């Protein structure tokens, strides 16, 4: 299972990659593995919406289960990943790349510091899995 060191991680198994004052968000390798084959993604927020930490921004549905995606940071939703429409399997195949879900302009970059780093998240997952 992959835990790229340059990312930050939430307890709800989202990852965040900071690019300037923007954040790209997706589901972690652990999350996609737990969900199994993703077949639907439904966004609850649209570009232009303001989202707060903990808001449900999307619903990701696999053959077996459905999971809500909580925004790990707050700010203006800039973009959702339209390439996933009809290619939802990218969430499974490339969770940290082509499977990204959202791009947000950070209202408070300090919120990112509250998230886990890769080694802390890896330990968190190991605990959850046992």
């Amino acid at each position: 299972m992959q835990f790229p060191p340059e990312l930050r991680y939430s307890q709800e198994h989202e990852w965040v990659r900071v690019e300037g004052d923007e954040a790209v968000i997706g589901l972690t390798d652990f999350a996609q593995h737990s969900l199994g084959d993703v077949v639907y993604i439904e966004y609850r927020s649209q570009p232009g919406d303001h989202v707060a930490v903990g808001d449900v921004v999307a619903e990701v549905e696999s053959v077996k289960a459905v999971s809500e995606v909580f925004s790990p940071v707050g700010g203006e939703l800039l973009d959702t990943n339209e390439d996933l429409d009809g290619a939802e399997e990218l969430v499974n195949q490339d969770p940290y790349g082509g499977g990204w879900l959202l791009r947000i302009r950070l209202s408070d970059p300090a919120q990112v510091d509250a998230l886990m780093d890769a080694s802390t998240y890896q330990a968190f997952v190991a605990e959850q899995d046992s």
Partner: protein
Amino acid sequence: MRLMRTPFYQLHVEAGARLVDFSGWEMPLQFSGILDEHRAVRESVGLFDVSHMGELRVKGPRALDALQVLMTNDVSAMVDGQAQYTVMCLPSGGIVDDLLVYRFAEDDFLICVNAANRQKDLDWVLEHNPFPKGAFVTDESARWAQVALQGRNALPILKGLVDFPLEQVGTYHFTLGAVAGVTGCIVARTGYTGEDGYEIFLSPAGARTVWEALMAAGEPYGIKPVGLGARDTLRLESRYCLYGNDIDHTTSPLEAGLGWVTKLDKTAPFIGKDALRAQKSQGLSRRLVGMVVERRIARPHQDIIANGRKVGHVTSGTRSPSLDLNIALGYVPRPLARPGSRLQVDIRGRLANAQVVRTPFYRRPY
């Protein structure tokens, strides 16, 4: 309580399966992924561990008479070496379980029941056996491991591993023989996927030998081990009922579309007959229907809505990997049950459009 493990458990761990608790059994949910495993079965072949299923033996001079009272189907119509799908009902017409009956001889039957219902079924059969001095019931579940080899290439794979002419075993028939040198197996041409294939009962001691032989013989065909996740998508596309979802003690076989195994005119006074006859003569109030749901996946227990009112509920729902549609089963009032009928499903507070369609959703093309 510690989870029970089938004789194939170690093989699943070695294969990297994701394991889940399924009615007290630690079973593989998936190996390579539900979609991949589903496709393997539809396009070629897959191998399932179904050892969690229960097996009850009914033997004795009145075994047939006892089964005629316990089962809704006409067990007397079977010949030696034949298998039959049936349900057992309560006096109310509700379903105790759905199961397969295998006839070895007029005085010797095996019945294969759902894992979750094994103890309940055993208790039920013992308590309602009308001829306890002539029909003897024993639980053989611990004696049998079971695999299902399913898909259009099941026959060529199994053919080379058995010591009898496999082509001569017709659909819903079985024979006794050796598989990969493991003697005393029951090889039945039955399944829960909608494909051609076999269910093989074997001694737990032969589990690894048989599994590895089938996987090796299946390799040229791209055989995959298949978990419970794809077992569910496969059975739902074929509209096979799942006990606990689509049928239970509150649903009758007539409502569930299982009238074809409910022989109301057989002479034996089977349990539930009067209630089911009354239900038939008064007309059913609801039916289990197949639906295609737009854009979202319906899940069990969600409300079915018509004209803004709740009219029923979903019992099973999934993405159909073969059809690329969202399919579901659910109970609706009879006037809404005809194909083309437009409904909605309340999916976590939002309504999705649905339409009643003919079932099965998928029918094998060969």
